[in-house]
């Protein structure tokens, strides 16, 4: 459990914001795909903590980034954080995406909406290993495509929007790159229907696929058993055995 200081709260547009949190002490080691549980406050509507993915960690500046979409009361309250506020977090939680050892691996990272959040940190870790990946990012319209500049620092960026306001028109799974290129591993995070479509594509190409699930959670550290998903091993906790799963383990 850690108290972090809000260094900056960047409103990206009226739906999304980026919290940059700092710490006087060294941040613990965190892996891409892991998440934090943020305490909002004690108001009746925001009783439990909110699970949020690790968007990026800058160890030099001792900064943790959280990219958040405003959904309800909890995320709305977080969006009003001011510089200097303290946030109480449990971190880091959950497992992480597999980092291949082979530098020649052809990797595709597919994100939809705010589901792109963990992919930025994953891309940065892959680059550290010498792997330049492809990012395929989708949104309803151009306002739902976030951090494109940051992504382009770590890999090649491809985009789709449902309304055609940016990139190719359609869903991520309609993007031309999928017909032109063959990958060794596909990672995905976003709305479940999107991840299922990506998993189906990967299966059709005999490609390994890892997805990150967003089940509702009460604790985030394996104590309540509220967050389970069905798997080949029966019900497993998304917060401890996930949030990242190989789709062969899920019954997808």
């Amino acid at each position, binding site marked *: *459990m850690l108290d972090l200081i809000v260094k900056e709260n960047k409103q990206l547009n009226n739906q999304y914001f980026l919290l940059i949190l700092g710490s006087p002490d060294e941040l613990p080691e965190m892996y891409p795909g892991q998440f934090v549980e943020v*305490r909002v406050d004690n108001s*009746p*509507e925001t*009783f*439990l*903590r909110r699970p949020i993915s690790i968007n990026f960690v800058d160890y030099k500046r001792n900064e943790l980034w959280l990219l958040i979409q405003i959904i309800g009361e909890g995320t709305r309250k977080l969006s009003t954080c001011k510089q200097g506020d303290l946030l109480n977090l*449990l971190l880091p939680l959950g497992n992480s995406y597999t980092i291949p050892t082979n530098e020649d691996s052809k990797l595709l990272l597919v994100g939809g909406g705010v589901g792109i959040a963990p992919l930025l940190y994953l891309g940065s870790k892959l680059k550290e290993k010498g792997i330049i990946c492809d990012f395929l990012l989708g949104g309803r319209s151009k306002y739902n495509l976030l951090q494109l500049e940051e992504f382009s620092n770590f890999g090649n960026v491809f985009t789709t929007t449902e309304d055609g306001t940016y990139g190719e028109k359609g869903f991520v799974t309609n993007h031309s790159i999928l017909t032109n290129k063959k990958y060794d591993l596909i990672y995905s995070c976003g709305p479940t229907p999107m991840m299922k479509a990506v998993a189906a594509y990967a299966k059709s190409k005999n490609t390994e696929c890892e997805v990150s699930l967003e*089940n*509702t*959670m*009460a*604790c*985030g*550290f*394996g*104590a*309540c*058993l*509220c*967050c*389970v*998903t*069905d798997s080949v091993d*029966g*019900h497993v906790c998304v917060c401890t055995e996930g949030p990242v799963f190989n789709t062969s383990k899920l019954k997808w």
Partner: protein
Amino acid sequence: MVDLKVKLGQVELKNPVMTASGTFGYGTEYQDFIDLSRIGGIVVKGTTLRSRQGNAYPRMAETPLGMLNAVGLQNKGVDYFVNNIYPTIKDFETAIFVNVSGSTIDDYIITAEMLNDLDRIPGIELNISCPNVKEGGMAFGTSCLSASQVVREVRKVYKKEIMVKLSPNVTDIAEIALAVEAEGADSISLINTILGMAINAEKRIPVLSTITGGLSGPAVKPVALRMVWQVANAVKVPVIGMGGIMNATDAIEFLLAGASAIQIGTANFIDPTVSIKVLEGIEDYLKRHNFSSVNDIIGALEV
């Protein structure tokens, strides 16, 4: 130095702060956050004769100052507990109770028998109050007849502390408490969760896969306090109070109402170190009011 020791039937706890079943895993989940040897006792996850997958997802809904759960006693069964989990937790320096549930009386009997031989388990908490399983569970705890029957049969095979956990989903809780006391319960814990429901209006569907679930958290505290007070006034055996305890003041209210110990449930999810804070808060309170022992405030409500 204030004396924090409390006696629960056959067992003495180093202090009255326990953690509630289903909210504290097997204790191991909290080892990174707190020193388990500081708390008075741990009640581990609900254990059944055979392994259970529990209910389908979604199993949780957040509600104002509380949550509904429908976990449905997911666990790997008592065999697995005895062979794989017990060895990893037996050296915790705190009293470990196993919460036992069943669909039939035989389930309760066999499970309790298997736990009887575990040296480091001083007692079981008989869960006759789980609202999240179709068969058994709460059904046993909602009538005096079936509640008495379970306790009577388990008493025959289980020699150590039997703590019976009552359901709040009854008309007269004191009546059930008296019935289980008469059959040899060493202590009585309450409350389990209150049956509730949440609806997603936009989608016109229930939030939980099971439609109804168990409500816990501060939202249930006034009901829990009332029931603890009623039961403590009715029975002679010690009472363990729980339901919505978030801090030391909440815990002290339960002690004043007549509880000899308290259990903390849902609050652990929000602050995994809360049990230690509650313990320290109780100690402060006793010092501030010049009590030399926590026993001085048990049932000390002035009415």
